[in-house]
């Protein structure tokens, strides 16, 4: 136990064991985010350079985009940052139950955003006939937004790992149970963003609900089973190792999550809104 545990107070903003007082993990994530800035910087630059030098026959962005839908999913992604902040706040108060709910909420909001992207990609390819290879706009658009989507998906996976870690018991070996729990959470999230959310968006655009249920019957059933499994495995009463002392870990992932959201604000501005000026 760390030395300040004796006083019953955990200082979430200062770590006495490091030279600067910044916790090591937090510093690592900050440095990584600096690196990731350059990563997205290079991708966004590529997109903007080719935007200014379109070859003949390039796709016309405003004819492809569905700005209402993207605005909606942008809003949801920003709200997921709120839930993430609430998760950090909850664990800093030692409230594990609330932390779990907020983590699940963040993940699900992330999946709504990803689902919007899945719908968008499928729609652009099938209806607007814009693919990775038939225009340079397609190349840069799918690579840039796809890379961002991958970041969100990795974020969901990291949050999922953090979520199941909150169930790690103080005594006894529960590795298999924990792993099944993680698989169930991943299945729920995967079904959400690949089938459920895109399907519901189609319903909003006029496809009958029955057709969607019929079309994605198997994955939705699997998702439902996984959802039940997630809740059953989440009904635990024993002592868990996770607690207020892990606030730094949750905060570190939170940094990443907020960063990915901020990057999306830039992408949404530079890739989507810029075309409507």
């Amino acid at each position, binding site marked *: 136990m*760390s030395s300040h545990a004796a006083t019953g107070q955990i200082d979430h903003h200062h770590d006495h*064991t490091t030279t600067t007082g910044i916790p090591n993990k937090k510093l690592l994530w900050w440095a990584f985010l600096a690196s990731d800035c350059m990563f997205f910087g290079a991708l966004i630059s590529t997109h903007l350079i080719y935007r200014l030098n379109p070859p003949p026959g390039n796709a016309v962005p405003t004819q492809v985009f569905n700005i209402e839908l993207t605005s909606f999913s942008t809003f949801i992604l920003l709200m997921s940052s709120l839930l993430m902040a609430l998760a950090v706040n909850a664990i800093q108060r030692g409230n594990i139950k609330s932390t779990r709910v907020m983590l699940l909420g963040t993940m699900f909001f992330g999946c709504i955003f990803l689902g919007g992207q899945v719908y968008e990609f499928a729609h652009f390819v099938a209806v607007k006939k814009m693919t990775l290879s038939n225009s340079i706009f397609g190349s840069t658009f799918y*690579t840039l937004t796809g890379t961002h989507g991958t970041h969100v998906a990795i974020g969901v996976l990291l949050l999922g790992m953090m979520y199941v870690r909150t169930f790690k018991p103080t005594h006894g070996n529960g590795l298999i149970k924990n792993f099944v729990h993680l698989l169930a959470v991943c299945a729920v999230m995967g079904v959400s963003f690949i089938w459920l959310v895109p399907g519901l968006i189609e319903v909003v655009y006029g496809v009958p609900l029955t057709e969607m249920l019929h079309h994605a019957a198997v994955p939705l059933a699997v998702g439902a089973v996984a959802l039940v499994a997630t809740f059953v495995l989440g009904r635990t009463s024993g002592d868990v190792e996770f607690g207020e002392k892990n606030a730094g870990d949750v905060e570190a992932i939170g940094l990443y999550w907020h960063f990915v959201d901020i990057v999306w604000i830039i992408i949404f501005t530079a890739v989507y809104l810029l075309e409507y000026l």
Partner: protein
Amino acid sequence: MAQAIAKSDYTGASHAPAKPTFELFTRPTAKTGLVGWLTTVDHKKIGLMYGGFAILFFLIGGLEALMIRTQLLVPNNRFISAQLYNELFTMHGTTMIFLAVMPLNAAFFNLLIPLQIGARDVAFPRLNTFSLWVWVVGAILLNVGWLSHFVPSWKFGGAPDVGWFGYAPLTSKIFTPDMSTDLWVLGLQVLGLSSIVASLNFIVTIINMRAPGLTMMRLPVFTWMALVTSFLLILALPAIAIALIEVMMDRNFGTSFFEVSGGGQPILWQHLFWVFGHPEVYILILPPMGYVSEILPTFSRKPLFGYPIVVFSGVAIGFIGFGVWSHHMFTTGMGTIATAAFSLATMAIAVPTGVKIFNWIGTLWGGRIVTRVPMMFALGFIWMFMLGGFSGIMHSAAPADAQQQDSYFVIAHFHYVLIGGATFALLAAIHFWFPKFFGRMVPEFWGKVSFWLIFVGFNATFFPMHFLGLNGMPRRTWTYDANMGWNEGNFFATCGAYLLGVGIFTYFAVLIWSFFKGQKCGNDPWDARTLEWSIPSPPPEHNFAAIPTVHARDGWWYEKTHKEEIAKEKAAHIKAEESHGGIHMPDQSWYPLFAAIGLLIGTYNFAQLHHPVVMFGNTVLASHLPLAIAGGVIMVLALYLWSLEGPGGYHLHIDEKGNIKESRGGSH
């Protein structure tokens, strides 16, 4: 103070419970043997492995260079084929930069940073192991193509042959349909991942794990340069990562980032590559500037002249280094404004570099110079690096550069910087710190013999190339006609290369001899200045029996002159630490290695994505996709188990006689 030191040992996490709750594989505890090395989290062992692999590739890259020089010995030579020549110059450059100089620097980062800042290990020991094994994965991917020359059924199409900077559109599937380019792309990508992870670790270590009293402006210059280099790595590598992703997408998924037919512009590759590639030059040279800044004061018997300005210049070089990339592209027709701006920035970066050289001369000035072998190499560094710097300034003038571009003049320039500069400093550093990590001295006479062989051989090889280049000999030329006027220069250069080869061989042969038979040495054979010389050679697992308190810039010199004060302080620190449960050490782990193996399986198969899996002549799978996914899954699983495993740890207890006892479990 004692209280603060005792605290500094904590990881902040709870220590290993008596019985771990989650365990798929028993946590390894072997300190020696294969398992000990594969799962180690000890920064010294990791550093030695980096060093060993790097020296192996340094020698391989050297052999590649000798084959290139042999081909150019005489005009119209047919020693090797043009195709093999392409593979050799590509792999010579790639190997020397990514598999020799960078990992040798990484080796010294690992070996020295924790010792110089008075820490017991890096901030994230398991992440450090992961960086090492990921680096090995990258090295395998880059070199696996050579097997095609020996086993024809392995259809990699030979080693990569697109040049070390792989200019588009040569990397397009139309021009290089072979798998070798895919392996090159993924190999560099993986090496970049390794460097980023390692650099993040070093940044946190240097900023956050300094011993009490070690303020930033007391850090040894080497550690400062390591910090600047780490920042350069994390900020520069993403640019090439994106460029490589774009090539990969072009080659595998039909995008047109660099395909002119689809609206792409190959010039974009050059920009993205050099946005990485120029900081990369400073990534290679800043750590050597650090070694030299440690070695020169030690053998001049004086503190470093103008420490703050040396540090500031290093930071300035790192900063300006991001604004000069287009001087590699003066002949591409960027326009006069851009050309003028990059010309000026390039001239500007010579200023902090020159300041450093004046500071080193200032360090020598009035010193009592001891010409031991590391000092010889360090002095050679200053002289040769300056020569490379002078031809560099010539390139900064865009009109002159238009004549020198892609000629042997450029070859001469960057070999003066990278051999005369980086390699001389690395050879100095190996000689200087060898006694610390092996406890034996390298014989002075043979060290000097190797120095003079290398010095003469190096200059004989590369000095004539200035004239060859100005006479118009293009780089990367497989052979040349006898009437071009290049015969004598090439003959001379090749003879010099053989001499250089003999020198390098002597250097490493002497090291191997010294490893077994060298004279044993104490803690501080050079009467040096920094903390690593205050502990036994080789250092014990826990580095410092007592975490030192640093009172001055040259911390160990201060300790040597204030023995009583320091002895009292240390006794108090040991007592305080023992009352808090002893010295905390991190546990070893399998998972970094497993994650790297998953990455190897994933990337190796991803490189061959669209090729069928063939076993014993039968097609087993239509594509490598399932195998690539399997590798990715293995990696994610290993990372998941790693995250559940926790840092673990055990304690060491040192009694008055210096005996070490280990204890596990329980809290304080």
